[in-house]
């Protein structure tokens, strides 16, 4: 049944306007990196940009795998398997499948 009470309307308003304003903030953040002038970069800054993804990916992986978790041991072993498979075969999809497969296998073995 529709709720047209003032309390309900106030709760609805609480999320709508902050959400829309914050979505503009997020778009501004996303745009700012693209909008910097594309001047010719010095060799130092060109090498700097090359290492940004290495740092970002490392941070994303490490932060995720260092949180306390009952399955952390399985994730670490599976991550090792994924690294080895990707490095040896040079095929990322094999690394993904191998890592996920190893993780589920380990969970099943201890279940």
């Amino acid at each position: 049944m529709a709720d047209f009470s003032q309390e309900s309307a106030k709760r609805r308003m609480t999320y709508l306007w902050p959400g829309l304003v914050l979505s503009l903030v997020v778009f501004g953040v996303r745009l700012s990196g693209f909008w910097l002038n594309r001047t010719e970069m010095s060799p130092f800054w060109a090498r700097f940009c090359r290492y940004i993804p290495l740092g970002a990916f490392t941070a994303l992986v490490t932060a995720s795998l260092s949180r306390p978790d009952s399955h952390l041991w399985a994730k670490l072993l599976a991550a090792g398997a994924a690294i080895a498979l990707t490095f040896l075969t040079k095929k990322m999809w094999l690394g993904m499948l191998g890592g996920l497969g190893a993780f589920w296998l380990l969970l099943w073995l201890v279940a």
Partner: protein
Amino acid sequence: MMPLWLGAVPFALVYTAAARQAGINPFEIQLMSLTIFSAPLQLSLVSLGVAGASFLIMLGVTLTLTVQLVLYGLSLRQLIGLDRKQRLAAAYFLTDGAYALTVTQGTKASFAYLFGAELSMYFIWNAGTLGGLLLNGGLFDPAKIGADFVVPLTFLVLLVPMVRQRADWLVVGLCALGSWALGGLLPSGLLVLVIALLAGFLGAWLTSPRKARNAA
């Protein structure tokens, strides 16, 4: 892309369940996915809303969780030539996953590839949100099926081929130590920004021609 899609759906279901429990109406739940398009930020905003946080706190959290996107835009601009309309379009849908997939293309990276990756993630995230709403936001724990492992695993297999020389190993090793040390102290977006900056400066210094000549 498929691993990232598979990783996104469970989190979309978690987001809709949390948002429904918080009393947010379905229209706003979907609108947040359409306009903010960030799983960690949307989940954080729901939690902050429930806790009665002020708008200023929400704004601070928004900036710390998304600040790494500035570096992604800068990095992509060096990789791909983008006109004004392409920059606007690419910026709206930019995520960690789309960035990761595009930079691994190297010289083959293009606006078409970037935008395709971004749009596919946008579609999956919003379809997952809608699916969660239609399922009435039933409680779902991604950890139970290992879905929370898919995203870090994807970034890991993308990282391996990028590590090609000794300097790269050193940068990754030091960044991993830094992430582990700072992980509990910094919000995720700020952590990624700090570590990415560390990697940039360290890698640029280690691979400078002067350093290479001294080493020879």
